């Protein structure tokens, strides 16, 4: 059978108009903006011999930067998932004064450009800043240390953890909890056996999104981290540095590696989504 590209399949009687044009615009745009550069990246990387690729992707400096990026992103995503759940819980279940304001605060990191967040956090936790001043006096250094990176990552990726959990908590059927109460369950049992399993997929999605965002973050981190190789150099920064030093092969190799990671995360997110949809 011939596959018809115009989309006018014979079995379907009626389609709203605009199929051809909307399909055309969509795929054209995606091809030029997204697929072409991606293909270019993989093409560029394929010019590199396997040895070179291996050397670039798994050089000591690169490995260290992955380690820093992954571990700090994991840590900040973990903090965000826990705190995000608590914040979502408080905002949905309890009556808090100014709850509308706090709800708006959650999205603040979306509204603050990353460069601004970076500069602001660096000052805030620096020796003259409101918070850094007090931390320094008790001997805690934040700026130019991994701790600073974590704080920046927490800031930029926090909304993801909360925004995925809030709708699930809001939609939760109170009857189900009442039912568990009638069956004799204690508060902690209702939480562990009813609420937590229901929210878990959303928590996992929030964690993954938060992690993905933290892994790719650049703007806010470069200000606060100090960018010392082997200590506070994150993977995206390494890509930028290699590019600036015109080491295109190394740069392409590391970029391909990071691209693969984000594709894997994307696939994982889609599996998660179809899984939680299927359960309903």
């Amino acid at each position, binding site marked *: 059978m011939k596959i018809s590209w115009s989309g006018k399949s014979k079995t379907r009687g009626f389609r709203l108009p605009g199929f051809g044009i909307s399909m055309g615009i969509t795929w054209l745009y995606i091809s030029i903006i997204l697929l072409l550069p991606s293909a270019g990246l993989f093409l560029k990387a394929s010019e590199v011999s396997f040895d070179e690729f291996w050397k670039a992707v798994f050089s000591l400096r690169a490995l260290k930067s992955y380690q820093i990026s992954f571990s700090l992103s994991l840590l900040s995503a973990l903090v965000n998932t826990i705190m995000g759940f608590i914040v979502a819980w408080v905002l949905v279940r309890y009556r808090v004064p100014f709850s509308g304001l706090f709800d708006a605060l959650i999205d603040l990191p979306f509204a603050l450009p990353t460069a601004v967040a970076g500069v602001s956090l660096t000052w805030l936790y620096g020796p003259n800043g409101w918070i850094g001043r007090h931390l320094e006096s008790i001997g805690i250094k934040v700026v130019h240390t991994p701790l600073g990176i974590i704080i920046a990552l927490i800031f930029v990726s926090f909304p993801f953890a909360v925004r995925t959990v809030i709708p699930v908590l809001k939609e939760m059927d109170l009857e189900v909890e009442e039912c568990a109460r009638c069956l004799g369950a204690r508060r902690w049992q209702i939480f562990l056996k009813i609420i937590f399993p229901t929210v878990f997929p959303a928590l996992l999605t929030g964690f993954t999104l938060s992690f993905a965002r933290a892994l790719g973050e650049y*703007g806010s981190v470069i200000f606060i981290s100090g960018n010392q190789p082997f200590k506070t150099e994150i993977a*995206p920064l390494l890509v930028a540095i290699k590019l600036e030093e015109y080491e295109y092969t190394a740069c392409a190799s590391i970029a391909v590696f990071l*691209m693969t990671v984000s594709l894997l995360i994307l696939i994982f997110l889609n599996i998660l989504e179809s899984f939680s949809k299927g359960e309903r």
Partner: protein
Amino acid sequence: MRIVAQLSNSRKKKFLILAFRFILSLLACSFLVIFIFTPLLAVFSNAFQKGVSFYLEMLKREETISALTLTLGILIIVLPLNVIFGVACAWYVTKYQFRGKRFLVALLDLPFTLSPVVAGTMLVLLYSVNGVLGWVVESLGMKIIFAFPGLVIATLFVTFPFIARELIPVMEEQGSEMEEAGRMLGASGRHIFFRITLPNIKWGLFYGVVLCVARCVGEFGAVSVVSGHIRGKTITLPLEIEILYNEYNLVGAFCLATVLCGTGLLSLILRKWIESSEKVSKRRYFFGD
């Protein structure tokens, strides 16, 4: 007595529950204030540290004006393109059944999970002189990387899904019945779109535009890689902030930051306003910068 004991027991329990709620609320609110709110507060309090005249002077500098013009120039090109793509893509995804729909929707998420630096790098590797398409660019006599077109393409890359992602849930919720009814009444495609679909998605579209503007103006990572930092030519507002910071002009950096924060805060306020009057559907989640 047994009953008295029971009563005081239940009162104690009630107190414990209240205390638990209070501590949890306090924890949540103080986290929000310390980790999320103080950076914003710091921007505004530092910007006016050297007085209003310094603030205005910073905004009137030649570099600031040129950065602002550049940023607005990028916005003027990127925004209409994204609106056209957003509407077309949402229409395509929600009104028809086709193979590869899930793949397409997943692709819309790629700019969110990919580091903007990698995005910028991809463009450099593609369009620079040594890049895959470098010869095409050169033979056309254009310059893309380290020039205005590069900034536009980089911004497009990181912002293209915003409007589509905003519209898809709204249009999915509404279904196609109204459009089909319009078709039965003899409306043309143009009529259906402008008279039936658009009035119903206008708030979603509007908010998508707001998000897109905020991100366009604030984009740093991707733009920083393709810009080449040529003074007066490829320095956008966020890049200018970085330069000021590196020149130890912290207050100046904060002054420019207030402009960007303004756009961001405006988008937040608009979102609250739109949502409170329930003009857009509640989203699953949304990405931004």
